[in-house]
C-alpha cells in the first residue's frame, strides 16, 4: 500500500475551523436580527439563507467560479487589492464554505434566540443593563445550546462539503485538496486502501459529532428557559 497522506485531513479541519469562526461572527448578529425584527425583509432574507439547503452544489459552484474569477464581482476587487486570484485558493474555499454552511449556523441560533422571551430582556433592562450588556450577560448564556449546535453543524457540514470544492477547489495538495476530494481522487485512481481509511475515519468523525450534538442538545434544553 502507498503511504496515506494526512495533509487533506489537517487542511479540512483548518477550513472547517476558519469557516465556523467566520460563521459565528456573521451568523450571530444576523440570527439575532432575524429573531427580533418585524421587518418585511425578514422572510426574503430567511429564504436566501436557506437556499444552500435546496440548491445543488453545482449552482453555487458555478456562480462562485464566475464570481470569484478575475472578472467577478468578488474576484475582481480582490485581484485589484491583492494581485492574486481567489477561486482555486484557500480563501476562495472559505468564502464558498461560509455561503454553503450559513443555514446550518443561522437557523439553530435564530431558533434559540426566538425562545428567549422579551420579559427576561425587559427585566434586565429595568436593572439598567444596556443592549450589549443584555446580549452578553443574558442572551449568550441562555443560548449556549444554540451556539454549540450551530457551531458543530457548521463545522461538520464544512467537513462534509464536496460538490462546491470539487468545482472551485482545483485539488491543490495542501491548499485546496480537502478530505472529500482526496477520497474521490483515491477512488478514481482505484486506490481503495487509502479511500477506505479516509472514508472510515470521516464516518466515525461524523457519527461522533452528531452524537455529541444530540447529547448536548438534550442536556441544555432546560437552559433555554422553557
Amino acid at each position, binding site marked *: 500500500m502507498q503511504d496515506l497522506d494526512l495533509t487533506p485531513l489537517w487542511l479540512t479541519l483548518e477550513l472547517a475551523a476558519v469557516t465556523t469562526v467566520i460563521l459565528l461572527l456573521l451568523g450571530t448578529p444576523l440570527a439575532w436580527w432575524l429573531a427580533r425584527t418585524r421587518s418585511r425583509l425578514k422572510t426574503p432574507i430567511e429564504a436566501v439563507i436557506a437556499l444552500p439547503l435546496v440548491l445543488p452544489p453545482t449552482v453555487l459552484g458555478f456562480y462562485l467560479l464566475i464570481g470569484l*474569477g478575475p472578472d467577478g464581482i468578488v474576484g475582481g476587487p480582490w485581484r485589484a487589492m491583492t494581485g492574486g*486570484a481567489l477561486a482555486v485558493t484557500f480563501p476562495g474555499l472559505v468564502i464558498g464554505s461560509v455561503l454553503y454552511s450559513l443555514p446550518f449556523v443561522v437557523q439553530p441560533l435564530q431558533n434559540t434566540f426566538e425562545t428567549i422571551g422579551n420579559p427576561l430582556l425587559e427585566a434586565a433592562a429595568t436593572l439598567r443593563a444596556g443592549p450589549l450588556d443584555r446580549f452578553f450577560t443574558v442572551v449568550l448564556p441562555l443560548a449556549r445550546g444554540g451556539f454549540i449546535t450551530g457551531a458543530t453543524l457548521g463545522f461538520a457540514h464544512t467537513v462534509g462539503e464536496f460538490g462546491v470544492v*470539487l468545482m472551485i477547489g*482545483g*485539488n*491543490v495538495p495542501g491548499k485546496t485538496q480537502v478530505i472529500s476530494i482526496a477520497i474521490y481522487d483515491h477512488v*478514481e*485512481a*482505484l486506490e481503495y486502501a487509502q479511500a477506505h481509511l479516509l472514508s472510515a475515519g470521516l464516518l466515525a468523525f461524523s457519527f461522533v459529532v452528531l452524537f455529541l450534538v444530540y447529547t448536548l442538545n438534550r442536556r441544555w434544553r432546560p437552559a433555554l428557559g422553557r
Partner: protein
Amino acid sequence: MLAAGIALGAPAAAAHDGEVNVAVAANFLSTSRALARRFMADHQARVLISSGSTGKLYAQIRHGAPYDLFLAADVRRPRKLEQAGLIVRDSRFTYAVGRLVLWSRDPRQVDTDGRNLKHGRIARLAIANPKTAPYGAAARTALQRLGLWSRYRQDLVRGENVGQTFQFAVTGNVDAAFVALSQISDPHHPQGGSRWIVPERLYPRIEQQAVLLKNAAANPAAADFANFLHSAAARAIIERYGYGVPALRDRQAQRRQPTP
C-alpha cells in the same frame, strides 16, 4: 396512469435496439458529439455520450457500468480492459492521436515557444489530474522534461479531467492550462487567447484507443458506430477537431497484433 406508462414505455423500448452508450474521455467530448451527429444522420440509432476522465470511466467500467463503447485518451486502460476479458475480442483500435497545448485566454500570457512557462512567469497553472487523466500525465511529463516540475508542482491546480482544467482557464481562474488541442479547436467554439503547441518530443505520444465492451456483443449499432470511426467521414471530423488520425496501414497492423 397505466396508459401513460405504456405510452412512455413503448418508444423507449423501440429505441433501445438502436442505442449506443459511449463513454468518452473528456478531451474528446465535443468531437464525439460531432461524430454522433454525423453517424445518426444515416443510421437508425441513438448515440448517448457520457464523459469524464479516462481513469474515472475505466473504474466505472471495471464495476460494470453499462457502456457499449469506450473512447479512452490512452492505450493503457483499453489494454487493461482487454486483459481483464471485458471487451469484445480484437476490438481495440486507435481512433485518434492527441496533441497537448498550453493555452491562456490572455493573448499575452503564452508565447509561441513557451518562454513564459520556462521562465516561471505563469503564476497559476492548471493541468488535468495526472493520476486519472492522460492529458494530465502528458502535461506532467512535459514539465518534467523541461525541468520545470519542481518549480510548478507546489501550486499546480489540478482539474478533475481535462474538461474541468480547460474551464478553469476559460473563466480566468488560472493564468494558463495544459489542455488538448481539440478543446481550443472546436469549430463551434473557437478560442482566442494565446497558445503554445507543446513539441511532441516533450511527452509520450497520446494515442487514444477505443474498445467495444462486452455489453456491445449483442448490440449491432455499437459495432456500426465503432466501424464508422474508421470511415473517411469520421476521420475528417476527428482531424478537423485538432487530432492526428492513425494511418490506415497502422490500424490494420495493430488489429492483427496478438493480445499481450
